[in-house]
Structures are given as structure tokens and as C-alpha cells.
């Protein structure tokens, strides 16, 4: 992992020292080399805009789940109730009776 120190800096090779400032300059140079943007424009632009110019898809592709179809249909607007365990157990007992008498 890259370790950057503000005050001292890390020796890079024999002559150059890596600091936040130097890294920033290198990054701007690298972006400018790959795009038609100037250093001043790069400093002003949003990261998303720069990503677009660099043709980087920063966001992961959306994963699709089948149950989301229900959400799209508006089922997410259902006011989800908190139903006590007793009520759920009663339903299951009723089901027992229905199945017993079938």
C-alpha cells in the first residue's frame, strides 16, 4: 500500500520525493495526457465528469433480483405491519384444522 506522509515525504528513486502535492501534479498530468483537458479544467471539474472523459465506468452494474418486479409494481408502498407471533401461530393452527378436515 502506498504510504504518503505530508511533512517528510517518501523518497522515490534517487531524486524525486513523493508528497501529496507531487502526487496531485502527477495525477493531473496523467489525466491531461489521456484527455484533451487542461490542468486548470481538471482542477475545476467534478470527478464524475473526469471519469466520463476517461471512459471509466465507476459504478458497478446493477444486480437484478426477481422480487424487485414486485417493488416496481408498487408493492413497496404496502404499509408493512408488525403481526404478533400469536396471530401467526393461530393462522397455522387454523391451517392444521383445514388440512385435517379436507
Amino acid at each position, binding site marked *: 500500500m502506498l504510504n504518503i506522509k505530508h511533512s517528510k515525504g517518501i523518497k522515490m528513486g534517487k531524486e524525486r520525493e513523493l508528497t501529496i502535492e507531487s502526487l496531485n501534479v502527477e495525477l493531473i498530468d496523467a489525466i491531461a495526457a489521456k484527455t484533451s483537458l487542461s490542468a486548470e479544467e481538471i482542477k475545476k471539474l467534478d470527478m464524475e465528469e473526469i471519469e466520463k472523459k476517461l471512459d471509466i465506468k465507476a459504478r458497478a452494474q446493477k444486480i437484478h433480483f426477481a422480487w424487485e418486479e414486485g417493488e416496481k409494481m408498487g408493492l413497496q408502498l*404496502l404499509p408493512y*405491519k408488525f403481526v404478533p407471533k400469536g396471530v401467526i401461530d393461530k*393462522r397455522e393452527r387454523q391451517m392444521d384444522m383445514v388440512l385435517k378436515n379436507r
Partner: protein
Amino acid sequence: MGISPIVDSKLKWILDDAYPLARHSVIYSEVVMGELNYSGIAELRDVLDHIQRALDTDNEEDALKDLEAAYEHIRRGAVESLQRAATKTFFDALQVIRYPNLMYKILLHEVPDKGQIRDLRMKAMEKIANGRSHKSDKGKWKNSIEDFKDAIDASNEIVDKLPNKAEFRFRLLTIVGVIITIASPLLSFLYILFR
């Protein structure tokens, strides 16, 4: 010490094969019922507890036991969630098939095919019974998920074919309103005529 290859492969199998099924079941049951499925969520929490223990221990045997327990919670979370949803939708469907055929005719609603409704009701019952009897079977619990889902579909089909209580009442009110609107000037006219 890292986890052993056996533990690693079993963990992968649980997370890739069984867990998504349980997750879908828990969410599906909430969407279908409109109720918080806290018992399903609690089962998924227990799954996480066992996985954490399996990863923390250096003993392979203990880790495998924990993964077995995690799998059991996954199974329970999936089948219990779907069973709850199937039971609720079945009773909801029973609520809408209480009215006699004459009532549908009076309300100018299409009279439901009794045989078809009965078949759907019997299908839902059979599927719920099958699902319940297979849910504890380690080799067949995934089939019971299918059974519960079929029961939910059959119950929903019944609900879709018949008007619900609110619709029923609205139609009744509309027809009573129309009758009063027509009858009141007619009665007033007859009253004036024969007075």
C-alpha cells in the same frame, strides 16, 4: 491459521447455493403478505452467527458443525417464510369466496366458475400440505418452497377472479343509490297522481 479447504468449499456452497434462496424467500414473503417477516430475518441473523463462529475457530470439526447449523437456519428461514405467506394468502382467498351466486347476479358481476374456484382452492390446500410434509426433509425442502409458491399463486388467482369485499360493498352501494334515484321521483309522481 486460515480456514481449511473443506470448510472453505462448504462455506462457498452455503453462500452461493442456499443463502440466496433463503434471502429471496424472506423478501418474497414480506412483499406478498405486507407483514414484517421478523422470524425469517432472525433466522438469517443466526446464519451469520454460525458463519462467524466457523471462521473464528481453528478446529475444522467445530467449523463444519457450525456451517451445518448455519445451513439448517437457512433452510428454516426459507421454508417458514414461505409457509407463513402461503397460509396467509390462502385464508385471504377464502374470505372472498363467501358470497352466494345470486349476490353476484344482483350486483351485475360475472358469476365465478364454482368448479374452477374449487379446484384452485383444493390445489392451494394440497400444495400447502405437501410443503409442510417435506419442509423438514433435507433432500426435499427446496421442493417444499416450490409447493408453497404454487399455493400462493393458486390463492392469488382466486382473489383475482373474484371481487374483494371493498369492491363488493361499493357495487352494492352504487346499485342501491341508482334504485333510490329512480324510485324516489317515480313514487313522488304516483303519490301526487293518486292523492
